[in-house]
């Protein structure tokens, strides 16, 4: 039998060759087709969100996003182990997806077995559907393990400690397709929008000096020696009553009398002690210069541009240890300034002096003032007469 195909004449031997050629063609076409498909794989990010596992409502739409740097990871975010949620659409549904973080060319570096630059893997997904959601705990980002290619899991809060860089680390997230251990395509990236994303777990440095003035039920703190830190957003005072937190069995009150001097404006000014402990006149182990402030003893907060903090209401005739810490734009508390002593005390305000001297009035805007002067009545009558006359005049002119 002779089969003529495209001008070629094939014998029986030739037919076997033809079958082999066809099979090879099909195989090559299949590989090429798969390869082309992989090369054309597209990754489309949906609306990215985040949630806190410690919150009762874990809907990313209900997460309380910061107005400033909403995608950055703060110390509190790390302690709460917030989770980034990345909804992803794939054009092909059969690959493994890896999420890398870094501030380097992670597309080029991810395949390397060592020296992957500033790139580390933070998440992955297997057996992909076309529409998937990848969740990345922020601790995986904060860990910044450059030597490991496996996904970190169940990291503890210890990864949030020990950071020292108050400027933080800006990162880019890379979404990369992988098949059989090999990189496929160039993936896509997410940089956190206009304000970027990254992690910054360290608050701003404390002011180098504070000066205390007293008031009734209040202390006034003048802040000095702030560094020109663009990350600094606000300053917060912490007031702890003398002796608070002392364990009689173990704590020893320092022997020095005080660490206070006198500032140029007359207030008590801090002179740093070698230990950072509060002065003996108001000693408490809860406030130590250079340490994290006790959040529960916050007693007043102002914008960084304000040089003075008026504390919230304090008890008169109680001596307080007082320190100040900064807070950066993503809410990281800084370390405490030197500790100062202050004692609110009863004072005379203007209205008390006025009342004691026989002054009248007060009681509220709507309180009656029966003793208004006769001149006011005369003025009211006269003004009424003017108005009436003008009205009569106008009425007549219209007539």
């Amino acid at each position: 039998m002779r089969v003529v195909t495209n001008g070629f004449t094939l014998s029986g031997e030739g037919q076997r060759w033809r079958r082999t050629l066809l099979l090879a063609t099909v195989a090559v076409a299949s590989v090429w087709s798969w390869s082309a498909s992989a090369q054309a794989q597209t990754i489309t990010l949906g609306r990215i969100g985040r949630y806190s596992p410690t919150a009762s409502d874990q809907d990313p739409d209900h997460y309380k996003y910061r107005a400033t740097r909403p995608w950055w990871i703060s110390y509190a975010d790390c302690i709460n182990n917030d989770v980034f949620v990345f909804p992803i659409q794939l054009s092909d549904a059969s690959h493994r997806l890896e999420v890398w973080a870094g501030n380097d060319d992670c597309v080029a570096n991810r395949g390397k077995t060592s020296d992957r630059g500033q790139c580390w893997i933070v998440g992955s997904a297997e057996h992909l559907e076309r529409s998937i959601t990848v969740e990345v705990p922020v601790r995986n980002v904060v860990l910044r393990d450059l030597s490991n290619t496996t996904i970190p899991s169940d990291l503890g809060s210890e990864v949030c400690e020990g950071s020292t860089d108050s400027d933080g680390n800006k990162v880019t997230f890379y979404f990369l397709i992988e098949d059989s251990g090999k990189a496929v395509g160039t993936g896509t990236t997410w940089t956190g929008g206009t304000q970027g994303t990254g992690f910054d777990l360290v608050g701003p440095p404390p002011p180098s000096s504070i000066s205390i003035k007293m008031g009734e039920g209040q202390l006034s703190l003048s802040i000095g020696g702030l560094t020109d830190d663009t990350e600094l957003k606000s300053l917060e005072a912490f007031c702890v009553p003398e002796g608070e937190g002392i364990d009689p069995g173990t704590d020893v009150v320092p022997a020095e009398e005080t660490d206070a001097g006198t500032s140029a404006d007359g207030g008590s000014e801090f002179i740093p002690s070698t230990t950072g402990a509060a002065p003996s006149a108001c000693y408490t182990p809860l406030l130590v210069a250079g340490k994290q402030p006790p959040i529960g003893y916050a007693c007043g907060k102002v914008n960084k541009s304000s040089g003075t903090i008026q504390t919230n209401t304090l008890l008169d005739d109680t001596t307080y240890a007082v320190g100040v810490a900064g807070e950066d734009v993503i809410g990281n508390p800084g370390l405490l300034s030197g500790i100062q002593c202050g004692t609110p005390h009863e004072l005379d305000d203007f209205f008390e002096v006025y009342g004691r001297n026989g002054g009248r009035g007060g009681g509220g805007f709507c309180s009656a003032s029966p003793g208004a002067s006769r001149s006011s009545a005369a003025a009211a009558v006269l003004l009424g007469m003017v108005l009436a006359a003008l009205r009569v005049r106008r009425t007549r002119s219209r007539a």
Partner: protein
Amino acid sequence: MCISTAVAAADTEVSAETTSTTASASEVQAPGHSSVPAPAFAATPTLEHRTDFSSQNMAFELRFGPYTPRENDRLVQPEAGSGQESFFGDKTRYQLGLEIDGQLWRAPHVGTLGVGLGWSYTRRSALNKPLPGSSSPVFDTPIGQKSTLNIMPMYAVGVLRVDVLAKELRVPLVGYGKFGLGYALWWVNNGLGTAHYTDENGKRIVGRDASVGSQAALGAMFLLDWLEPSAGTELDTAMGINNSYIFFEYSVSNFGGDQMNVGSKNWVTGLAVEM
């Protein structure tokens, strides 16, 4: 001079046959005179020639001046010779205010009569004081807490503005008088919040109230249009502002009786416009 003479000579022939409304033939023929019309310069607009005023119904004042409430004189002033300062000290404090007048009736050859509503705000602060006789060691630390007396004086007054000088005699001055009812909101902050004390009957008196009294003022306004009449015309055309003034006024408010007298005697200056 040579040119003038030549022109005059040339024109003499023409003028002999024409009649000029500006010069008689004898004048033209006089040496040094010409029948050529003078260049036409626009006459400077003057107040008496302005007929382009839009209707005028109201006045608006932006006011600024010192403000010393009388309360400080009577009740919180230290005894004479004690060497102590008054609570708020002697530093001059200022007020900023607004007034809007309805000019309801124009009295011919006098001015306008209307009613005005005014508002202003002032405040004064001073450090709180140690209790009398107190010698607590805590006063080794200076005081940093302030009392602030906030006053918001308001008034409703009859206003007579005598602008006959400006309108009819081209003297850019307008005199005025105001008299009416004064009303002032005041409140005291002691550094922690609204101040208060407990009276002899154990009643808690809160440091905020309103005081009622009388308000009077005498003043003079200088008409700025007189300095730049064309600008005045443009303002009227563009914005309906008939006249603009700078004014000086002596203002007296009194809130006597059983209330805090936050009235004041003070000078006020500012800008005013009539629209």
